[in-house]
């Protein structure tokens, strides 16, 4: 069933000190789409994501998630649909053990103990961290923290997965594991990242943001291989597509 699940109409946001971070953002995302959000630091990616989750409310324009318009009153409801994975896993894992962190969401949803156990087990299995359930978070590696952070969100069975820089600070293997994990999710995905190769791999569609405005919105294969477009927006080609002379042993 294909319907718009996320809809932004002319969204503007200005911080309390006056800085305009978003200047009229409009786009629609369909059910099941994977969309990459790309742009330099300060372009407005994080602000946009925080608006999507109701942490910030647009100063102008409208956001609707699953047909529910975003407002102070509907924030909680929308947060149930949107699973937000923050930039730093340490900020998301605040309970004494992995189990309790993953259970936090389901418990707040009001589920019974058995259901909570079920959700936690499934979520941890999904990210391959079931064996870590009794570990305290400060004893996890970066990659494990990332995975568990995703599990904490998955346990709430969100419709949409929003992720802010999921691949940063990961070693190559963990990064690859993360990419495979994301590719396996059928959820609607919105991923903000500097890792253009990851976006290319995981998201079929890509939105480029500059100075709070959308400058491009289209298939990743097109946008992310368009060198001119990327350079105009202070970006570069994905590393895997950059022609690097290979030194051949003579």
């Amino acid at each position, binding site marked *: 069933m294909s319907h718009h699940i996320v809809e932004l109409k002319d969204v503007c946001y200005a911080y309390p000190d006056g800085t305009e971070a978003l200047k009229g953002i409009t786009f629609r995302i369909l059910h099941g789409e994977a969309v990459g959000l790309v742009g330099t630091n300060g372009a407005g990616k994080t602000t946009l994501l925080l608006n999507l989750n109701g942490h910030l409310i647009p100063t102008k324009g409208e956001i609707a998630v699953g047909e529910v318009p975003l407002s102070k009153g509907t924030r909680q409801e929308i947060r149930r649909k949107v699973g937000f994975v923050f930039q730093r896993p340490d900020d998301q894992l605040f309970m004494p053990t992995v189990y309790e962190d993953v259970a*936090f969401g389901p418990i707040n949803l009001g589920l019974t103990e058995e259901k909570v156990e079920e959700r936690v087990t499934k979520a941890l299995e999904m990210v391959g961290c079931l064996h870590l359930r009794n570990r305290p978070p400060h004893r996890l590696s970066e990659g494990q923290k990332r995975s568990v952070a995703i599990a904490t969100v998955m346990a709430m069975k969100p419709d949409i997965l929003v992720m802010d820089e999921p691949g940063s600070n990961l070693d190559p293997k963990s990064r690859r594991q993360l990419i495979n994990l994301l590719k396996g999710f059928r959820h609607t995905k919105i991923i903000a990242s500097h890792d253009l190769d990851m976006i290319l791999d995981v998201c079929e569609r890509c939105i480029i943001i500059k100075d709070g405005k959308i400058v491009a919105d289209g298939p990743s294969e097109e946008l992310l291989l368009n060198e001119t477009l990327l350079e105009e927006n202070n970006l570069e080609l994905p590393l895997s597509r950059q022609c690097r002379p290979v030194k051949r042993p003579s």
Partner: protein
Amino acid sequence: MTFDLEFFNLGYLDTLSNKDTLVHRIDPRIKIIVSFIFILFVVSFQKYEISSLMPFFLYPVFLLTAGDIPFKAIAKKVLFVSPFALFIGIFNPLLDTQIITSPLGIPVSGGWLSFLSIIIKFVLTVSTAILLIAVTSFPGICEALERMKFPKLFVIQLLFLYRYLFVLLDVALRMMRAREARSFGGRGKEIRTFIRLISVLLIRSVERAERIYRAMLSRGFRGEIRVLRSLRLRPFDIVFAAGSITMFYLLRNYDIVDLVGAALEGVLR
């Protein structure tokens, strides 16, 4: 102790507390209560009683050996925190010079006896405190406190503090290293720089707290945090508690040591 050492020490005790031995498996509530009662008995000794204190070493020794805790680590920590007690205690020999006894013909003043008593009490109480955390995980202690009716807000505070302690120590460590790298021979450690450093650390901490709060909200937080309840008293725990406390009581009120000494003397004659 330098910053680095303190940092790793914290992690080390944390690691030790996750072992799985007989002692580790005892209910944390029992360990807390027994340790506390132990300390009360130890500090109740009068100032010139030395030998009667000796059997009390049984408790920390038991925790140490049955809990598979390396002796050196505990010894180092005890040594490290001794200055204050020693500093106060050293006045005793200076002020109390009345000769109390002369074992083997060497006169010993009351002051030295009470000083020795302070040292022994110090070693007993401090080692027990460290051993307690070495054989009990911190979350275990927190849950024990909650079950013992400590206010939940305080318990949650302890858990959050513990959780973010390592994170913040890491941040502070980096800041110190950066300061180290840019200060040559002491300049840079002035109070002005310090104030800047700490202020930045404070702001970053508050920002972190704001991000955590957002993460909590994203997962439906509405003010209640549920602490996991997994503690269950076993018969062994009760036996351990009853046995230890009885033993402490007997050792405190009956002079076993004198008996042992007299028996030994009798044998040697």
